[in-house]
């Protein structure tokens, strides 16, 4: 969205206006082209008339018609001496007609381009504006507007609105076109024009009366469509419960009932549309007959000047004219109907003005206490005032650890929202030292508070992107290498442990490994020995050329345990499609393809009937990665795999290359193993290495390899890992061994690039919590508010995070909403909320003595083991 310094960004309503200044240029361009096309329409009619007259009157010969008034085009050509003696008039006019049509084509092409630009710009701007507005909406808004509804409106309604800009231009240009044609009629005989216009008006008037109902139906249709999308969202979220409870029928019934509502609106709209269309059609027919009647009359009565040319031009122009006029009516209707969408999107307008990113924030090291003075609040305007008869009065010391406790619905989160200013108090004052917080805008608040909500937000990106998410883009810490402070928090929150573990499965791509090659051979030998000693798991040193059962066919062929994910992506890329077709044409690919068929024959039922990767991997005799599973499941849907179709063979070759020999039993494996062992220097093996050379580099015992995952890289061998427990054991030994060694740095860097997946799906609940905590600490504002910071953590991590909060409170004011008794015991102040008011606040020990309700609550928790 175009924002100018010192100028407030447009509101959503302004942005949705058809004639928004940002698009006027493009719209004007469309208008000019449209006018030119209308002019061409008029010109081509005149030329057509001249051609016909020239043919019928003079047989296309030189000269002007003898028995009627010459068409002005013919006259003009003759007057200007443009004709060589003996040349045909009709040829010159025909050329002019062709030229006009050519220009028309060029202009239409330009129109398409300009329209596309207008459309995509409008779409981009609406999306940005809606997001900016929605992000400023309060929690209440999202209780009634689901994410699915928003996505639906963003799709359906914004499309209608974007179309409007083109529609307005089309409206004007179609009107110009129609006017040009009418003018042509009028210039011949004004009665034609009057008849044409009069009759076409009937359809427009009828349509006008139908519009009210159309609008109503459109709204109903869209709203029921929103509900269907929201139902999807709800039920997909509840999928585990639905599966366990076998509630599919129930879900289906609910969806069908919403669909019925939409169907009803849709069918009624369709019938209405049909009625409209039949009115237009009848209208056109009447108009056409009227015109023909008029022409017939003209011919019958001996006609006037130029009648012969007019007949031909009329036959060409009448369909055009009625096309235009019914288009006009439809365009007006579309504009009116888009009003529905406009009103739906305007619901997303935020009341809060979008101020530009403000640079002013209070100094970060400012230590100030927070005080609340007689604060009362209400959940919505006019609602009952809460906070007790005297309101909430509370003081929070600077740089202290405070916890808010209380039963569910007691107002714990509300208190935090009030302090942060996400909720405005109905009366009373909240201040940070001398600074009144109540009136502060969002930008000023952003320099004071760091907040970790209870529902953790993990973005679809790397670990590093996630922990830096809290830092605004204009902050120098947002980019570049992570500084010492950041690394400190990554270590303290144990995100580093998680990163290192993940790194073992990742390859050190895009890193300069040179500096870490020193004594790598020694480290590798030591590690292999230690693993065997501590875990009893044998580690076979890598030996290029040998066939290792754990590896895939491809890895065997290339004697490299390359990063499978990287390889997979590279093999599926467009640039390697040709490589695959080359490989498939080599006779040596046949055993690999046969092998793949055998793998499918052994697992096809599982692939077809297991709904998810987890289910498949629980049953399959040999593990495969989710990527390979996904690929195979899709391939199963492709059709019969025994087809000789080269495309199927190519896919099978790929499946064979990404499969491991032990996956299928029987003779196929034996054959394949023989082939692989033999193929060490064979043509096929060489071709594979060449085609996928980017991912395959020779292995060396004295250097790290960018394509080997860290675990294999550090061991320079393959551990016989048979289950997850064994893998964890091996990882533990490796990570203990490399602790404090220089090679730890690139490992951690790799791990921080671990992609956490959408909504952090590739992390556990506890890991997500650690990442979010790290993000909050890294943001490092004077006041840190965390909602249930340890809810998802195991006891060990919980204790660690509690001590971390205690430690951080030396230079931050920490407020934690918690159910954790241990954290409450460590706090400087426990704030107990009950029934929406401040019940008591003191140190834990003092509260236990002074407050019966607190004692009861604690006893209940301890009994429940919380």
């Amino acid at each position, binding site marked *: 969205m175009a924002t100018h310094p010192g100028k407030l960004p447009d509101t959503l309503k302004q942005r949705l206006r058809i004639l928004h200044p940002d698009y006027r240029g493009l719209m004007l361009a469309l208008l000019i082209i449209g006018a030119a096309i209308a002019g061409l329409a008029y010109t081509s009619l005149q030329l057509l008339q001249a051609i016909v007259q020239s043919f019928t009157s003079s047989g296309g010969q030189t000269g002007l018609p003898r028995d009627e008034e010459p068409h002005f085009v013919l006259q003009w050509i003759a007057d200007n001496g443009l004709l060589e003696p003996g040349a045909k008039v009709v040829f010159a006019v025909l050329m002019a007609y062709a030229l006009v049509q050519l220009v028309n084509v060029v202009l239409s092409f330009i129109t398409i381009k300009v329209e596309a630009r207008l459309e995509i710009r409008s779409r981009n701007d609406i999306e940005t504006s809606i997001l900016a507005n929605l992000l400023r909406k309060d929690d209440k808004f999202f209780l009634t507007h689901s994410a699915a509804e928003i996505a639906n409106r963003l799709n359906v309604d914004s499309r209608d609105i974007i179309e409007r800009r083109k529609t307005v231009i089309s409206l004007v240009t179609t009107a110009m076109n129609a006017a040009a044609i009418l003018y042509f009629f009028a210039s011949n005989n004004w009665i034609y024009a009057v008849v044409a216009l009069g009759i076409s008006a009937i359809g427009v008037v009828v349509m006008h009366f139908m519009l009210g109902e159309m609008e109503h139906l459109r709204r109903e249709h869209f709203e029921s469509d929103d509900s269907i999308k929201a139902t999807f969202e709800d039920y997909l979220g509840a999928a585990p419960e639905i599966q366990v409870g076998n509630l599919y029928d129930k879900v289906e019934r609910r969806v069908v009932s919403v669909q019925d509502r939409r169907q009803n609106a849709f069918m009624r709209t369709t019938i209405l549309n049909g009625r409209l269309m039949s009115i237009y059609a009848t209208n056109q027919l009447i108009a056409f007959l009227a015109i023909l009647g008029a022409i017939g009359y003209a011919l019958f009565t001996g006609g006037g000047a130029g009648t012969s040319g007019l007949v031909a031009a009329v036959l060409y122009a009448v369909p055009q004219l009625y096309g235009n006029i019914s288009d006009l009516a439809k365009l007006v209707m579309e504009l009116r109907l888009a009003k529905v969408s406009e009103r739906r999107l305007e619901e997303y307008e935020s009341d809060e003005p979008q101020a530009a990113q403000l640079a002013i924030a209070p100094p970060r090291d400012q230590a100030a206490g927070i005080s609340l003075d007689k604060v009362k609040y209400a959940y919505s305007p006019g609602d009952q005032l809460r906070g007790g008869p005297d309101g909430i009065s509370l003081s929070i010391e600077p740089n202290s650890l405070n916890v808010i406790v209380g039963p569910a619905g007691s107002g714990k989160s509300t208190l935090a929202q009030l302090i942060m200013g996400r909720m405005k108090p109905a009366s009373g004052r909240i201040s940070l030292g001398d600074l009144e917080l109540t009136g502060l805008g969002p930008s000023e608040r952003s320099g004071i508070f760091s907040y970790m909500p209870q529902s953790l937000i993990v973005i679809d990106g790397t670990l590093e992107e996630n922990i830096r998410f809290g830092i605004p883009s204009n902050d120098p810490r947002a980019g570049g290498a992570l500084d010492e402070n950041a690394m400190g928090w990554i270590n303290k929150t144990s995100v580093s442990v998680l990163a290192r573990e993940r790194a073992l499965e990742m390859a050190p791509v895009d890193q300069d490994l040179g500096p870490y090659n020193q004594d790598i051979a020694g480290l590798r030998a030591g590690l292999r020995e230690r693993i065997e000693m501590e875990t009893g798991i044998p580690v076979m040193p890598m030996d290029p050329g040998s066939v290792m059962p754990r590896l895939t066919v491809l890895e065997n062929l290339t004697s490299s345990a390359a990063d499978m994910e990287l390889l997979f992506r590279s093999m599926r890329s467009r640039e390697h499609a040709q490589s695959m077709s080359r490989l498939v044409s080599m006779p040596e690919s046949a055993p690999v393809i046969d092998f793949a068929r055998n793998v499918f024959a052994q697992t*096809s*039922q*599982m692939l077809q*009937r297991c709904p998810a990767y987890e*289910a498949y991997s*629980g*049953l399959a*005799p040999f593990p495969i990665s989710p990527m390979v599973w996904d690929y195979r499941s899709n391939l199963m849907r492709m059709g019969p795999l025994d087809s000789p179709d080269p495309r199927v063979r190519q896919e099978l070759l790929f499946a064979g290359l990404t499969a491991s020999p032990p996956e299928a*039993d029987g003779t196929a494996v034996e054959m394949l193993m023989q082939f692989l062992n033999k193929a060490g220097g064979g043509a096929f093996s060489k071709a594979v290495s060449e085609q996928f050379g980017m991912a395959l580099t020779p292995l060396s015992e004295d250097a790290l390899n960018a394509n080997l995952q860290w675990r294999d890289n550090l061991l320079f061998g393959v551990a016989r890992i048979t289950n997850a427990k064994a893998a964890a054991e091996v990882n533990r030994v490796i990570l203990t061994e490399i602790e404090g060694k220089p090679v730890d740095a690139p490992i951690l860097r790799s791990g921080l690039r671990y992609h956490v997946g959408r909504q952090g799906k590739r992390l556990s609940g506890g890991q997500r919590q650690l990442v979010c905590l790290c993000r909050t600490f890294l943001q490092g504002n004077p006041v840190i508010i965390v909602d249930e910071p340890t809810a998802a953590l195991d006891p060990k991590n919980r204790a660690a995070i509690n001590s971390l909060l205690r430690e951080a409170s030396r230079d931050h004011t920490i407020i934690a909403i918690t159910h954790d008794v241990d954290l409450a015991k460590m706090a400087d102040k426990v704030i107990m909320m009950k029934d929406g008011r401040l019940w008591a606040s003191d140190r834990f020990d003092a509260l236990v003595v002074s407050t019966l309700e607190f004692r009861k609550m604690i006893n209940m928790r301890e009994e429940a083991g919380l």
Partner: protein
Amino acid sequence: MTLDDRIRTLHACDFFSVVPEADLAVLAETMHEEQFGDGETVFEYGDPADRVYVIVSGELLIEVPGTTGATRHIGPGDLVGEYGMFDGTARSATVTSLSQTTLLALDYTRFRAFLVTFPEATLSILDRTVKRLLVLERKSR
């Protein structure tokens, strides 16, 4: 052994015969073949129990050590090792192959995974088991 052969074997096995056709095909794929020669021990009393076997061909002898005469011969379609499936950590008998034998093996972990993924199959096995228990109960009265 083709998939059809395996399905046929499972059909012939009383325990698995109740599993719906489509699920049986999946089950057949999760199993793997094991071969034993004449006189070879399949497992011994006290061994850790980790898989169930369906006999495809050949003959097996079941003996419970310490008891006399408590032996039983089993053949194609019979199931062995199913007791450890839900409870049990060690084999309760010794099983020896009396001929060239082909078995289909299914480890307990996969069998459990199968039961969790295919509830229809689980219900039919449960149904069959409960009916048997009722018969036994009636007999014992």
